[in-house]
């Protein structure tokens, strides 16, 4: 054919035979193959620019950076000083507490205020421990019930497309757009209808209405970041839909669940306004309200009050310190979409 007769430059592509393949296949293979497809960038690289930028900022302080530090220092001052003062006072006797000028370090530190509060044989101690039990029960019930609802709800919001999903998702947040006092009277009336006034359930239900929407949001962000392929793989590997969730997704979302739990618990633990309004019997009071009662009953006993305040803040701080790793992880991983 003309190809071989011509003295033009030969244009056969057949010189590429690999050792392993016979000539024909190798030729086709070489000809068909695309140059290697660009490989997708590793996920890791996403983090690097930010880290580098931060490193640079550390070397050369910018005006904004300095302002930031000042702001943080002021903030720290306002949070730490009252705490320190609280601890200091709680270790003093009643007389030492009103010394002028005030001393930061108690001259004769005493733990009697604590032993009194934690001694069930004293009236104060009995009251205090009861408030504490009530608070633990209300906060725990709120947390557990909240999670029982929020975990499946946020998973459903994240994974399933159903009619009205977005509307429903945003309407979940409507509750949190209003100041809490707005709902005080309506909820009180509602609770009275339900004959729940002056019961812990009125508080648990109310706290759920605050906590659930945010829990659902937080957890949904978390589920969104767990690749759906993991569940798919599990289902192909022989798991039911529920097993895929329970065995694969749940453990992966545990930081989110823990963070949500801390959040819900603290909300219930600290809440004052509703507890004050809904609960009338002294035996049902939760700690914030009980503490306030101490103010009126033992007005001069500052060290006792401070000790009670300190004990009240301990569970929150301990919980937070123990689980802060998960909390931070939840806030960053849940919020930042890849």
């Amino acid at each position: 054919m003309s190809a071989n007769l011509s003295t033009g430059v030969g244009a056969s592509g057949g010189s590429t035979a690999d050792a392993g393949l016979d000539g024909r296949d190798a030729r086709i293979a070489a000809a068909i193959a695309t140059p290697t497809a660009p490989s997708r960038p590793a996920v890791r690289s996403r983090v690097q620019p930010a880290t580098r930028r931060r490193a640079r900022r550390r070397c050369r302080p910018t005006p904004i950076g300095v302002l930031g530090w000042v702001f943080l220092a002021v903030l720290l001052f306002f949070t730490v000083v009252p705490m320190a003062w609280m601890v200091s006072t709680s270790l003093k006797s009643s007389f030492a507490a009103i010394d002028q000028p005030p001393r930061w370090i108690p001259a004769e530190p005493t733990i009697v205020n604590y032993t009194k509060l934690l001694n069930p044989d004293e009236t104060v101690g009995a009251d205090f421990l009861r408030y504490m039990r009530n608070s633990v029960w209300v906060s725990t019930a709120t947390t557990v019930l909240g999670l029982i609802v929020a975990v499946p709800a946020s998973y459903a919001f994240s994974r399933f497309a159903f009619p009205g999903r977005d509307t429903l998702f945003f309407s979940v947040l409507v509750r949190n757009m209003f100041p809490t006092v707005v709902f005080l009277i309506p909820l009180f009336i509602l609770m009275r209808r339900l004959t729940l006034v002056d019961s812990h359930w009125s508080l648990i239900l109310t706290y759920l209405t605050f906590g659930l929407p945010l829990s659902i949001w937080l957890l949904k962000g978390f589920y969104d970041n767990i690749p759906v392929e993991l569940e798919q793989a599990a289902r192909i590997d022989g798991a039911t839909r529920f097993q895929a969730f329970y065995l694969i997704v749940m453990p992966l979302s545990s930081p989110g669940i823990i963070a949500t739990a801390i959040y819900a618990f603290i909300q219930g633990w600290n809440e004052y306004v509703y507890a004050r309004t809904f609960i009338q019997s002294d035996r049902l009071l939760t700690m914030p309200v009980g503490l306030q009662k101490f103010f009126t009953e033992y007005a001069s006993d500052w060290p006792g009050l401070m000790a009670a305040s300190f004990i009240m803040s301990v569970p929150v701080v301990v919980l937070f310190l123990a689980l802060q790793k998960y909390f931070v992880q939840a806030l960053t991983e849940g919020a930042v979409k890849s």
Partner: protein
Amino acid sequence: MAGVTLREIVKEYGDVVAVDHVSLEVQDGEFVALVGPSGCGKTTTLNLVAGLLELTDGDILIGDKLINDLDPKDRDLAMVFQNYALYPNKKVYDNLAFPLKMRGTPKGEIAARVRKTAEILSIEHLLDRKPKQLSGGQQQRVALGRALVRNPKAFLMDEPLSNLDAKLRVQMRAELKRFHQEIGATVLYVTHDQMEAVTMADKMAVMSGGVLQQYGPPDEVYRHPVNVFVAGFVGSPSMNLLRAAVTAADGQGALRGTEGWLHPLSPANARRAAASSGDVMVGIRHNQVHLSREERPGWVETRVYTVEPTGDLTYVHLRLGGQLLVASADAEWRAAPDDRVWVEFDQGSLHLFDAQTELALPLADAVASGATVGSARAMATAG
């Protein structure tokens, strides 16, 4: 192992038809590669077979059992995901054991099979690690291992090698092929990389826009693309495709390109071209473009655009009117930009498509369709 049959399967997402009446038969023990541009419905097809998505229409059979409504766990398939989908909170051992555990395999047997699979893939030393502590290639092996640890009816693989670097990819390709041959697995394999399809697959299915364009052995798809899309998609560099009118010159059939060039046609090709409803698309592979530095009668004048030496051979990009044309030449071939070069298209391997329908024009009547591959080879050797 068993075959997999797709019958007219359809998947719609609202208005989007992701998979459009695809029919495909994967024989027992066959390795079928599913290729196509991004978004053409490859993953969707695979997920339909796996049962992760619901069919809009059509049937899927494994062996001769209809599985349309079967849960993924009951389909007895194994899948390798593009992003591996290793369970991040489980050690490699537990990743491999998971499919067995879920199916209630006794503990002793699980341990034995995990060890054996790990041995085959040379990942025994990694069993105590978490997926995060593995390199990409190691993760890929674990993902493969999680599929191999069972004895499923068929394997589904969604671009399992696409995250690996080029060298590792070549190595894993060889290992996958060996694995397929050793256990006679039925494999449906999605890939972007045609080299993978060509080197590993018994058959190649080319998809575009949710529609199956062509299904056959790779060399048949390469030699006889059924339409312009397949012609342009399969092969690298892509086939040159030029639009031309069918005319006559010097008493012989000829093509007149939209860029003004004139190229004679052999009598057989002239008969094919005449069957077109109007203009034709001429397809010509880079290695079937003959080059000459001197003017020759009937040859088409072009200008050199760039010359790309690759080591084995040199790709020459040529300007033909506003079009670029790629040809290949010997490794030593060189030219300066804008040099004049004359080209001729090899008549024996000219692809002709109806420009209107984009379908291939059948080869000359003497050649029965069954003998097409043989005749093409005969022509090549006769020249």
